[in-house]
């Protein structure tokens, strides 16, 4: 089980993967908006998305869990 974490503080702009989806390493899970920039949050390993921990519009701090991958 792997956690995908926010690389920096910002708000969740878009979630681009779905719960239950098979994803590959490096595939984007969500895109944050921070410092007026789009910040892609890729999965560090492949697997199935077990749970998405955030919704669009949420504020996340650096290190907060965005998704859990199995």
């Amino acid at each position: 089980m792997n956690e995908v974490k926010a690389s920096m503080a910002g708000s969740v702009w878009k979630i681009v993967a779905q719960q239950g989806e098979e994803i590959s390493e490096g595939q984007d899970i969500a895109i944050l908006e921070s410092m007026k920039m789009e910040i892609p949050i890729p999965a560090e390993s492949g697997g199935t998305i077990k749970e998405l921990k955030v919704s669009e519009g949420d504020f996340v701090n650096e290190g907060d869990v965005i998704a859990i991958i199995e």
Partner: protein
Amino acid sequence: MTINQTLEEKAKKIASGGAEKYHQKNAEKGKMFVRKRLELLFDDDIDIEDAFFANCQDEKLPADGVVTGIGKINGEKVCVMANDSTVKAGSWGARTVEKIIRIQETALKLNLPMLYLVDSAGARITDQVEMFPNRRGAGRIFHNQIKLSGRVPQVCLLFGPSAAGGAYIPAFCDIVVMVDGNASMYLGSPRMAEKVIGEKVTLEEMGGANMHCSVSGCGDVLAKDEQEAISFARKYLSYFPSNYRNLPKRHDSLEPADFDKTVEELIPKNQNAPFDMYQLIDRLIDEDSFCEIKKKFAPELITGLSRIDGRSVGIIANQPRAKGGVLFPDSADKAAKFIQLCDAFNIPLLFLADIPGFMIGTRVERAGIIRHGAKMLSAMSEATVPKISVVVRKAYGAGLYAMAGPAFEPDACLALPTAQIAVMGPEAAVNAVYANKIAELPEEERPAFIKEKHEEYKENIDIYRLASEMVVDDIVQPDRLRDELSTRFEAYSHKDVTFTERKHGVYPV
């Protein structure tokens, strides 16, 4: 037995290192014998070895657990010290320390690079009075490293532990290559941490190679095995001269690799959308010439050695794919050390800017982002090697300054047509200037007003306007950038300046 036979027999015994069981134990962990490592490291084998007979009257301490001498890498002489972990776990006795000090003194006298192949349990407590506190005790090793720093390249290959005081050998090197799974660095072992502060932690978590290469930044390169670490060291040194008085050797020029997309197609017009800076780098440099440093640490800033038209060039580039390319305390730190490294050894610098600025917020202010940023600016500002800054897309606020903006005497500040230079981006600027006005407007009128002000702002910071004001030296067609850089680095190669007269600056650290 003839005297020759006696000598040969003694030498053979010493050259075989410690007891067989320790060789076996090392082999199980994928660790090579020290002499095998040196054979792979050098073009041939070690050419000159000193104090081979150190401590030879104690049969259990062949060469006193360290090999020191001179060999050649890429045809150039280098000095080396290499721990033998089959001898008392590579620990330091009095003669071990003296041998290391002597080879460092040789490197200093001959102005040769100094390599440290570390695999050592630390001080031999039984020898402490002879090797720890005195003038030529272990402290002198670090003193010598500090003296050698910036004079000759210092490289550390970490094959095993580097514990307590020994952890400062990597700390004072220009670069630290760590072998995944075997290399570690720590002041106090997990056992000591549990005893003294009550923390329960594994060695890998606390001081393992992966942690140091991605979290602490004490490691620069994570190698999957010893062979990879050794090949990296050979490649790394090919970008450097033997010492600060010489220029790096020029290699044959190679065209960049072939790509489907042109530079123009690669760079998104939307300033806020990410793109992969590695792809731009690959289109500018000689094929396969990128030698990245600290790849896993602070990935929002890329640092690496490369060649353009056969010449060594150090690249500092924002990576919009990671953290939007925003600068953080760790990325500023990473940049400062890399810039100093290149400047010390006459390697020209190329800055590729696509940066929204330094990170803001409580977390980074508490981490001292201001002083870390100042450290990066100091290093960049002081660098007197040829320095070219390319504004790829946005360069906002102090981000422009940190990336060798026009005020910091780059030899040239070039812009691509997609460049945008400003105190802040249009969205933030309109918000800062017109926040009250926007709040007063009826809600339905706001979007049109904001859009109008964005357009006005964009015109104000238009790159042709900035070129007209001579803020940038040229606007370059994206697909001509490599040629432009190559011509300019050639032209600036005879640059000869002194930054300023003084003993040394008082650096923000």
